[in-house]
């Protein structure tokens, strides 16, 4: 009887008041950045006129058909990279885990590139094009994660070095694959490939992003309630099991949800490095390491930072655009170095 009472408690009960206020500030900044992102860019709006004027004006088309889907996609991709980074770091008990470093993003990009270059030959009419691409990216991501699982003997503690090494090997393999595909691709396919390797949110449309946003949200709502179990996992797998955590199930959940969210993100926006690595560290530095705070915090901050990076990519060299992956890597790479030095000191 006591047992049934104690099951399924809400996640907020594991966060402290400071963490709740930090999460609240994250939400506020998310809203602020969202509205600045949709109003700033190479095409600026006069909101006043927009809401007074007719819905057929150029302003409203740019806003509702181009700008808002793009900013939304950036937010969701940022959220899924931040969240999967945080949960993978928890699962591997390693602060260096990141969907990019361990090769998951590369697997997804390879899956997507295969479809871009070979898809038109394999599927004559390219009928399912909008679906095949994300699915193939998800498959690529899942394949890499399964490889990791096998090589690290079920993500055991001993296997963490192997994990990063396997990640390096997979990244190398993926770049070979993408290299070959680049070599045999036509001019228009080459354009598409370049897009994957650098990442961009350009060209988002509602038809493409609505299913993605739905699936990403579902995966996030599936993942976040496991936060407490990820905390217990930090004591080690046997300890977590003795405390009542079904470790196998938890691993499965984290891995599948990361594969899905990262696969979809990469399929729609290409490879965007370092967000999954950097964001959870920032969140931890601000308020603590428990996952009931870390997971929602990383999703929120990831979304804000990604929208900001996308905004930068749009306004830095107006009216042209920088690939957003260049911006995140330019900021993330030095941060990664700092992190390594910090770990070495400790």
């Amino acid at each position, binding site marked *: 009887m006591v*047992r049934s009472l104690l099951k399924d408690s809400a996640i907020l009960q594991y966060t402290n008041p400071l963490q709740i206020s930090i999460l609240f500030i994250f939400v506020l900044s998310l809203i602020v950045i969202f509205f600045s992102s949709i109003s700033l860019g190479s095409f600026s709006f006069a909101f006043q006129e927009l809401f007074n004027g007719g819905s057929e004006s150029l302003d409203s088309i740019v806003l509702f058909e181009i700008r808002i889907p793009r900013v939304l996609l950036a937010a969701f991709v940022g959220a899924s990279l931040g969240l999967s980074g945080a949960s993978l770091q928890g699962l591997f008990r390693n602060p260096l885990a990141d969907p990019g470093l361990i090769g998951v993003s590369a697997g997804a990009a390879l899956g997507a590139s295969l479809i871009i270059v070979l898809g038109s030959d394999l599927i004559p009419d390219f009928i399912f094009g909008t679906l095949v691409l994300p699915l193939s990216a998800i498959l690529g991501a899942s394949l890499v994660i399964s490889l990791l699982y096998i090589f690290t003997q079920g993500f055991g503690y001993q296997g963490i070095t192997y994990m990063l090494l396997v990640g390096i090997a997979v990244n190398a393999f993926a770049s070979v694959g993408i290299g070959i595909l680049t070599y045999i691709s036509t001019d228009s396919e080459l354009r598409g490939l370049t897009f994957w390797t650098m990442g961009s949110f350009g060209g988002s449309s509602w038809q493409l992003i609505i299913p993605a946003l739905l699936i990403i949200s579902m995966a996030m709502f599936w993942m976040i309630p496991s936060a407490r179990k990820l905390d217990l996992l930090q004591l080690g797998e046997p300890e977590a099991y003795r*405390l009542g955590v079904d470790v196998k199930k938890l691993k499965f959940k984290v891995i599948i949800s990361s594969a899905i969210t990262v696969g979809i993100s990469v399929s729609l926006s290409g490879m965007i490095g370092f967000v999954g690595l950097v964001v959870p560290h920032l969140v*931890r530095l601000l308020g603590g*390491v428990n996952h009931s705070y870390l997971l929602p915090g990383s999703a929120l901050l990831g979304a804000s930072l990604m929208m900001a990076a996308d905004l930068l990519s749009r306004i830095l060299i107006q009216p042209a655009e920088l690939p957003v992956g260049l911006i995140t890597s330019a900021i993330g790479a030095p941060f990664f170095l700092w992190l390594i030095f910090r770990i070495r000191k400790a």
Partner: protein
Amino acid sequence: MSVDIKNLSWEVDSKKILDDISLSISSGEIITILGPNGAGKSSFLKIISGDLKCTEGQIYFDQSNLNDISIQDRSFIRSVMSQSQDVVYDFSTREIIEMGWLDRGISNYSEDFKKAIDQISEECSVKNLLEQSFNTLSGGEKRRVHFARTLIQLWRPSGSDDPRYMFLDEPTANLDILHEQKMMKLIQKKRDEGLGILLILHDLNLAAKYSDQIALFNDGKLVDKGLPKTVLKEDTLSAVYGLKMHVEKNPFRINYY
């Protein structure tokens, strides 16, 4: 109420690590496993905790087969403490102790829970460490914190008397003699509250002083079990450990050189 282990054997690569062991852990009793390195003590503890599956034999917790008890339900009836792994992220000591309770903070009990944390951390002398970062603690302090966590795991909001068991693999490792004695007394106190307790110890005299029952393991087999004074005999001990032992009757004490 008791944990009953019947004819347990465990083989790895057709080598028998544990051979036909039958043992009971009763509520309100401290039973200590003694034996040299490689006798199979820790493997035995891992198997009855459910970490590993035995090759032959049955394990019953109050008449229910361990295999039929869900992972979460297992955590309510037994807590386990063994050598712990490092914690990578910077949790506070309080957070580590609270991890003993998978579903802490149900509002009906949260006040009681806070009191329980206070009381248990006081008993384990870690109260002054609660707000410190766990990773900055010494080995012995970490051990006491993990012990507090295993106690929290078996804590109950009300005066419920459902049977609970505690399996401790060398709980006093890394402890100074003061904290060693404090921990053993606390373990006795938990026994008096009705817990069934299984210990693995290396110090024969510590085991003789605090145990109700001794089970002597050697080479995967149960050599003898019973009251400390009947099991801890000069010839058996000397044979099992390969070391000359001398047992003094009054006060009961085992000397070895």
